[in-house]
């Protein structure tokens, strides 16, 4: 029996060594597909993450924990002249360690971009993004959720002449569904409608949208833009969700202001109906980006926007400031910091007056070899809310957490 075990181990070793020899031959170069220009890179990413606030009980006792993420995935980049394809897809098994191990889940993410005739007069751009994750953009949920979302966009740019004036017609379909994270429990009191997992599962929706963009490059790297968008929400259950629709119009300029300074200055107006009632507001996007060298940038911006979170009365207006600074040093070391602060006002809601979210994440990344990268970072999240008098302070409305992660990625 022992001899058989030894033999098995030896065979497994030789098996792995055999494939290691192949991997060493071209690790990082990928697999050539579609002629000589396309490259397929399978990869695997391992991430260890500490979360200071994984869970808390109904008595508000907070507990921390470690999560191990295993993400097998692939990237495909085929930059052809007639058709260009870009794909990044991965599965993500999140294994919670210790007492929270039953929170382990399978997630996934995929981004696909297909561009047709990008240098021609008439082109086609198709993008699709899928995400199954425990994270969400929605700030009106009372507890942790798992969100499945898919966003499909089809755009047709028309570039007559030299391409200085581009007209783009686009259409899109966004689909989102939600489920309770843990055994159907969202928040502490099951008698409250906002804590009902069955109700949460019916808050899924589809957004359909159409848009038109006019872009005129009056300088080689500076453009004036005029954008318009109409959208309509089709809720899964119209008894539990309103059926809002709305429009936005933006006008402004984007591009280089000087050799090392780029920016955006856009303003506009937007309106949402049946959110419930009507919400109208001015819109703005002001952004400045400093590009001291080609491999470094510092971006600072502000956005004023409107939107609707799932539910009956969660139409909102928002102010958001953001920071994104990154530098690539010696073609090998990347340092980055992103930060965002968002304030949302829910003027029609009986549950939530306002929500604030602060996220700060500094990180660093090193390319050890062409096929191996390591990275580490810290993320701080703080969420606060303003509740109307007589309202309920749900767990997801007020919390903070600190996360630290170490990441290792091997790419074939």
């Amino acid at each position, binding site marked *: 029996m022992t001899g*058989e075990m030894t*033999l*098995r181990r030896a*065979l497994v070793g*030789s*098996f792995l060594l*055999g*494939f290691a*020899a*192949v991997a060493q031959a071209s690790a990082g170069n990928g697999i050539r597909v579609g002629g*000589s*220009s396309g490259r397929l890179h399978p990869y695997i990413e391992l991430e260890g993450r500490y979360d200071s*606030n994984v*869970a*808390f*009980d*109904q008595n508000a006792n907070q*507990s921390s924990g470690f999560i191990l993420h295993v993400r097998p995935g692939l990237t495909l980049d085929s930059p052809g002249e007639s058709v260009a394809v870009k794909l990044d897809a991965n599965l993500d098994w999140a294994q919670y360690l210790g*007492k929270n191990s039953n929170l382990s889940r399978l997630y996934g993410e995929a981004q696909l971009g297909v561009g047709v005739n990008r240098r021609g007069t008439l082109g086609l751009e198709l993008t699709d993004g899928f995400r199954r*994750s*425990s994270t*969400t*953009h929605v*700030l009106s949920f009372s507890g*942790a959720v798992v969100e499945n979302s898919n966003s499909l966009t089809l755009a047709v740019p028309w570039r007559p002449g030299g391409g200085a004036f581009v007209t783009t017609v686009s259409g899109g379909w966004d689909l989102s569904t939600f489920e309770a*994270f*843990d*055994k159907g*429990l*969202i*928040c*502490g009191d099951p008698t409250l409608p906002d804590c009902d997992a069955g109700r949460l599962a019916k808050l899924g929706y589809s957004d359909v949208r159409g848009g038109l963009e006019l872009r005129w*490059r009056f300088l080689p790297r500076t*453009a004036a833009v005029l954008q318009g968008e109409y959208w309509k929400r089709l809720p899964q259950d119209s008894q539990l969700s309103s059926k809002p629709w709305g429009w936005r119009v933006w006008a402004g300029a*984007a*591009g280089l202001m000087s050799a090392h300074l*780029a*920016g*955006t200055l856009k303003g506009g107006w937007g309106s949402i109906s049946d959110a419930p009632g009507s919400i109208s507001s001015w819109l703005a*996007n002001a952004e400045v980006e400093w590009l001291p060298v080609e491999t470094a*940038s510092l*971006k600072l*911006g502000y956005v004023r926007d409107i939107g609707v979170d799932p539910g009956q009365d969660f139409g909102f207006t928002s102010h*958001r400031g*953001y920071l994104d600074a*990154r530098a*690539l040093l010696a073609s090998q070391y*990347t340092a*980055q910091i*992103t930060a*965002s602060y*968002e304030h949302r006002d829910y003027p029609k809601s009986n549950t939530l007056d306002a929500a604030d*979210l602060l*996220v700060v994440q500094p990180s660093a*990344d090193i*390319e050890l070899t062409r096929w191996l990268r390591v990275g580490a970072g810290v993320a701080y*999240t703080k*969420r606060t809310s303003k509740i109307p008098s007589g309202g309920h302070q749900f*767990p*997801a409305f007020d919390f903070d957490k600190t996360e630290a992660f170490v990441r290792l990625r091997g790419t074939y």
Partner: protein
Amino acid sequence: MFRYTVWAFLLAPTLALAAPAAQAPAARPRPAAIAGMTPDAAAQIPDAKKLEIAEQSLRAIRKTVDRVAGRSDEARVEKDVGKLNCLNAQLTQMKGLAKVANQANDALVDAVAKKDSATANTQFARVAIATDKVQRMGGEADVCLGQLAYLVDGKTSVQVEQPEGLPGMDVTQRTPPPPPLVAPPVVRPVNASQYY
């Protein structure tokens, strides 16, 4: 079952190591008999065989010259000056050697007809040496095209890989980042575990 597992494990590394070798381009056939040919060595070959080998050698020369000339034309279309110069340098010499081989073959046919063995041996050796050189230069032409890449599809392609972490390059396509994602802590029932 165990026996099949053993075979699978044994075969896998073998196949894996054999795979790169299988992808390597096949070596071009070079007539061993004519490599390093001398008139004395040619004397050991019957005249009829000499004529036959010489004819085969001329065909091999023509084929090699045509192959390199074709790729030179492709390089001209692609406007790849470096590749074109490299190919033309080889091609000029190969054409000269082809001319020498043709003249030597004519002289060989005459000499065999006249039963002039000394001249036949000399001319046969010239054909053999020219063939050897042409084939060697054909191989060098392949190398100068960039590690035999030409043998796959024959078209130059430039692949630019942008390192991760670079800021966006098209400064007119600017959209603000999407709202940040948030993961609220999970609410556990009191009796969910022994720790609560």
